[in-house]
């Protein structure tokens, strides 16, 4: 940003901006994550060792990958409730079709990816062409897919894929100096996250956000809405497939693997400040939401809280997190109405800078968000798309 603005911001100003980012709903998840990680390290000092920490990342990897997939659907303005069933179906497919024959690993992996893409395609086409609400489509898909999987296995755990295939989920690159072992899950997660960041910076990724924000505008600016929306469902089903591949190795084959993943993924995404109803959000924050959620469970574990209270704490946390982002933005918007005129000129230049330097975008995130805010007050009241709270929360996360 300093390249464009005439006066270079001092270190203090940058720090202040970073601080503001961290308290803003968009950055709050990182703050929460840091606090939770410190809490874990205090409760159990060995957690801070690199080897332990990498194990933690390995455990979060499937959840984070599912959350990344769910992010694209949610930011496009829809829901995907079928992810958990897709995970289950893929786990069972891997268990039954690969068996002890390692040579089958690659063909079955390709089949699983094709199956995942197909499920996403079906979801997306029903949503876009038949205009059925995605909540209902993916709910039906969740019931049908889970029922079909259980019918196939007879409701029992069957099959055990070859060890070579399970290595993906539980093995890793050994003999690395500091961390001893670099699990494949972590590599896969890093690759998926990098791909997701790259993808959301591409024109297509930005189109998804535009579509989630206002489908009419997106259509008038030449977007093929049906294809963009369908592709988000394919992304989410594919990410569920990848998570399934990791879970086969990590958790084994069981029809209950993956159950509830859709709600965990939605929780993680919302915790990351992504607005239900679409149009606002950042994929890294969604992944951080998954980490924060898992870190929260780890804290509860170490703190000796009975596992039955886990759900209750999870429920309280997500309500508070969303309430925080909703109410903070309301108050900020209200305050800004008065000082908008004096504020606006100084805000414009960093905003222009973010478009030229992509890596600065992470730092200046609040600025363009507020900029959009100022414009939002000028345009007519938006029509809520999916959910009630949109008008309040959409203001800027």
């Amino acid at each position, binding site marked *: 940003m300093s390249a464009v603005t005439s006066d270079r911001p001092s270190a203090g100003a940058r720090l202040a901006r970073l601080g503001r980012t961290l308290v803003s709903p968009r950055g709050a998840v990182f703050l929460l994550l840091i606090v939770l990680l410190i809490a874990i390290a205090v409760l159990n000092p060995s957690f801070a060792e690199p080897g332990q920490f990498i194990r933690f990342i390995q455990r979060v990897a499937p959840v984070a990958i599912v959350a990344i997939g769910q992010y694209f659907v949610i930011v496009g303005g829809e829901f995907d409730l079928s992810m958990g069933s897709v995970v289950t179906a893929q786990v069972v497919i891997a268990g039954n079709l690969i068996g002890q024959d390692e040579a089958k690993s690659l063909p079955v992996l390709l089949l699983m990816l094709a199956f995942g893409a197909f499920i996403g395609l079906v979801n997306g086409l029903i949503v876009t062409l038949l205009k*059925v609400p995605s909540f209902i489509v993916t*709910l039906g898909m969740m019931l049908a897919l889970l029922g079909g999987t259980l019918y196939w296995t007879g409701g029992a755990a069957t099959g055990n894929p070859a060890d070579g295939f399970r290595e993906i989920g539980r093995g890793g690159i050994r003999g690395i100096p500091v961390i001893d072992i670099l699990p494949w899950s972590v590599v896969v997660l890093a690759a998926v996250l990098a791909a997701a960041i790259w993808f959301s910076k591409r024109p297509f990724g930005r189109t998804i956000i535009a579509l989630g924000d206002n489908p009419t505008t997106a259509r008038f600016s030449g977007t093929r809405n049906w294809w963009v929306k369908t592709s988000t469902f394919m992304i989410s089903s594919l990410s569920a497939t990848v998570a399934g591949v990791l879970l086969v190795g990590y958790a084994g084959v069981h029809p209950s693997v993956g159950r509830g993943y859709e709600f965990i993924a939605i929780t993680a995404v919302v915790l990351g400040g992504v607005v239900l109803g679409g149009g606002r959000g950042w994929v890294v924050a969604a992944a951080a939401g998954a980490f924060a959620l898992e870190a929260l469970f780890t804290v509860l574990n170490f703190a000796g809280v009975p596992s039955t209270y886990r759900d209750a704490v999870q429920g309280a946390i997500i309500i508070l997190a969303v309430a925080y982002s909703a109410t903070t933005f309301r108050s900020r918007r209200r305050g800004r109405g008065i000082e908008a005129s004096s504020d606006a000129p100084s805000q414009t230049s960093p905003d222009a800078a973010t478009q030229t330097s992509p890596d600065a975008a992470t730092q200046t995130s609040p600025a363009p968000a507020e900029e959009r805010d100022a414009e939002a007050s000028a345009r007519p009241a938006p029509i809520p798309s999916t959910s*009630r709270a949109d008008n309040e929360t959409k203001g800027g996360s």
Partner: protein
Amino acid sequence: MSTATPTRAPRRSGSRRRLDSSLIVGIALVAVIVIGAILVASVGRNFFSAGNIRDILTGMSVLGFVAIGQTLVILCASLDLSVPYVVSLSSLIAADLMAGNPANIPFAVLVVLVVAALIGLTNGLIVTKLKVNGFIATLGTGLIIKGYLDTNYKGTSGQVPWEFQLIGATGVGPVPVSTLLMLAVALGAAFFLARTRTGNHMFAVGGNEQVARLSGIRTARPLIVAHVLCSVTAALAGLLLASRLGVGSPVVGTQGGYDLLSIAAVVLGGTLLMGGRGSIWGTIGGVAIFAVVDNVMSVMQVNPFLKDVVRGVVIVAAVAVYTSRSLDRRRPRFTAGAEPPAAAEPAAVDAPKGGAA
């Protein structure tokens, strides 16, 4: 449909939309009954026997209670995912307080309803005052109740006296008392929506909250009332389940999958998931469709796992049939001609209350 010219559109879409809501559900229900009767006859059983009709009506009652409340919440463009836990909690509280003594029945029912109303009030306040999306708010409160249930109850608990069990067991002819109670509640809810101020405001708030506020409606109150009523009807479902089982159970709500199934039934009944349009009687029709499909599958002894597949397909297919009649709710921002798919809809949003009356 999109070929309708702007001048003709208002009247035509108005008349078609009246056809859309409750009547289409009725037609779908009749179609499901006919297909079901044929299928049941093909295995040599009588679909219309008194016993079978009683089974269907019994199957309707619990989901019916939950779905009535869910309809109110969805009309306000919110959701309630906490219902299965409210159902479980109320069955447990009822069975524990009754403890097998008929004298405790009124007290237990009262406590259950008050507790449920408080849960609903909490939901409503979180949604309206903290501005949390209904999906997240009720998912959160549901998880909190689940944590409480899992911590304090290891299995079934309490004892329901015989007098209370009679509610779930007796019937007038082939019609079970529980179904009659459910229909009475449905009648009350329909009256509430059509004839009271708060009921009418629900449609307004669900249709467009900003417009409702600018029209001078206190937008928070209808939403809170809807959430309270939804939890109360879920509690009624829990009471009914307690009377059927004879005990309270911490998993009875989640096993029934009442959160997602009730939402599916509401949408199956022609209510828009985005709020503002729908009717109680459509919901009852949706619940009836579920009950008939389930009954036919039980009579034909379909594999229980395949039942879920059929259920999923029926939900999506049925809703696809409704929405293919162009339910693009967004009001065209520009002239009707400029927006291709929604061109036939301009009159639909102008009269959002038509469906309920």
